[in-house]
């Protein structure tokens, strides 16, 4: 029995259902007409062949209410713009503009412009919403322009020009900041730029003045044409390309140069390798992934590796070096929730990750000492994945713990932090497969299997 994808309902012409692992896009008459027009273009063949468009196969619809149906390969891991790095959103923006420009050259338009239509597969941006394409009607404006600015351009400007992370905004308001919001946020120097004055200040003003006015017929009669959209797209491409983020380098980007990291990396890799050989995971969730070294280890063994870390700068470098792992920028003490329409439209991180192996190296002492999560709660959380867990325990005597607790008294810390207490807590939820002590024994690796 097919299940409707809870995130695919806004466009009446096309929606996705999931049928026993198959991804089926059902089309109404209008959707089918759009598909027929798209599938005949050289653009479609070219963009599919080079991997910018998801592979698509026309099939017979199983239900009598649909005019047509398409089948797509399943995306290994769905991520959302509020989990992407700056370079990921920038590449997605450029992909959106390039596809629109190339499609328009052959009389096809894209009816929306949202990064939720783009996914990252093996480190490459792929446009997945084939239902967004339809035949361009002469005189029609670019319907997705405002959405493009709110969901691509403005979030990139936030990071590049105001130094603010866009992820919290997009997570809190998935439609993205308005032109009016940006007018208030951007520094004066940036607001005076010609491009900002047009896309931000003028758009904010015109939106305010013309709210609710029907203007599409007037534009058509006045001679609007696809050439005007193409000119706008070309200029937007130039603007997006010019947006750069120069991170401060104050985060975890230098973490690999720490003494204990270099010393222990090989041992941790070997330990994880034996867990991968033992359990043969299809999906590994790397919690606190840093530079995704261990995620890439799993990926080379054929697993879908999902690297989660709170440090956007480190993960941006992972993306830019062309890593094939799935990247998630996120705070593990506040992971992406299930949200959107009916609280189901964009499922939470854990629901999408669905791992069969979890690795948490160099993480739980940060949860316990920095985020003040009780050790018992940390173990319960790891057990909630209901799969084997490879975890690094860090003794209270460790040099990093000393730094994390420099301004905390004993009474301000939770109990259950010693190795013996950790093992007692673990024993209630897991059996211990392997253990390995690192260095002088203040760090210990455990392979835990749920009981």
């Amino acid at each position, binding site marked *: 029995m097919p299940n409707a994808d809870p995130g695919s*309902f*806004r*466009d*009446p*012409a096309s929606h996705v259902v999931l049928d026993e692992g198959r991804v089926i896009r059902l089309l109404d008459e209008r959707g089918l007409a759009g598909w027929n027009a798209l599938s005949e273009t050289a653009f479609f063949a070219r963009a599919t062949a080079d991997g910018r468009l998801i592979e698509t196969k026309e099939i017979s619809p199983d239900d009598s209410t649909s005019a047509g149906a398409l089948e797509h390969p399943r995306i290994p891991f769905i991520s959302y713009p509020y989990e992407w790095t700056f370079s990921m959103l920038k590449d997605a923006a450029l992909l959106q503009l390039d596809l629109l420009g190339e499609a328009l050259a052959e009389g096809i338009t894209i*009816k*929306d412009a949202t990064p939720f239509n783009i996914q990252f597969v093996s480190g490459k941006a792929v446009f997945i919403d084939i239902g967004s394409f*339809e035949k361009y*009607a002469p005189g*029609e*404006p*670019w*319907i*997705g*322009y*405002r*959405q493009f*600015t709110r969901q691509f351009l403005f979030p990139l400007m936030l990071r590049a020009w105001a130094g603010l992370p866009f992820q919290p905004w997009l997570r809190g308001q998935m439609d993205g900041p308005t032109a009016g919001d940006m007018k208030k946020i951007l520094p004066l120097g940036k607001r005076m730029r010609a491009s900002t004055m*047009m*896309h931000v200040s*003028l*758009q904010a*003003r*015109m*939106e*305010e*003045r*013309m*709210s*609710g*006015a*029907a*203007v*599409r*017929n*007037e*534009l*058509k*009669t*006045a*001679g*609007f044409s696809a*050439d*005007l*959209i193409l*000119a*706008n797209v070309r*200029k937007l491409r130039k603007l997006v390309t010019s947006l750069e983020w120069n991170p401060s380098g104050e985060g975890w980007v230098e973490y690999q140069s720490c003494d204990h990291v270099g010393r222990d990396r090989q041992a941790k890799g070997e330990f994880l390798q034996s867990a991968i050989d033992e359990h043969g995971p299809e999906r590994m969730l790397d919690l606190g992934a840093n530079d995704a070294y261990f995620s890439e280890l799993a990926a080379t063994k054929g697993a879908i590796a999902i690297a989660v870390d709170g440090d956007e700068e480190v993960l941006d470098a992972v993306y830019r070096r062309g890593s094939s792992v799935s990247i998630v920028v996120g705070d593990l003490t506040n992971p992406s929730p299930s949200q959107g329409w009916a609280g189901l439209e964009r499922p939470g991180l854990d629901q999408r990750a669905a791992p069969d192996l979890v690795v948490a190296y160099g993480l739980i002492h940060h949860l316990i000492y920095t985020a003040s999560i009780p050790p018992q709660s940390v173990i319960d959380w790891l057990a909630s994945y209901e799969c084997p867990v490879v975890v690094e325990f860090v003794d209270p005597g460790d040099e990093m713990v000393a730094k994390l607790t420099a301004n905390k008294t004993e009474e301000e810390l939770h109990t259950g932090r010693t190795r013996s207490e950790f093992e007692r807590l673990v024993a209630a939820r897991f059996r211990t497969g392997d253990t390995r002590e690192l260095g002088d024994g203040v760090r210990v690796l455990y392979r835990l299997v749920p009981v």
Partner: protein
Amino acid sequence: MWRELYEYGDRSGHPLIPGKETNQMIFGYLDAGSGSLILQAILGGAAGILVAFKAWKARLMGKQAVAEGEAETDEQTVPSES
């Protein structure tokens, strides 16, 4: 329910599809924003500015025609003194 919302508007009564009531064009499911639609013509360069100006003028004239029509109707419905 969603189809109703798309076609007949949100809770505030505004149609989510601009121009739906005229039924003369192909409509998107997305609220494109009226000001943004005019703006993108301007962003198309010199030719676009002319298009935007014409569209703006046509809109003004349309509003004026509606206003004049309403004024005429008002005059006709004013009860004459006898």
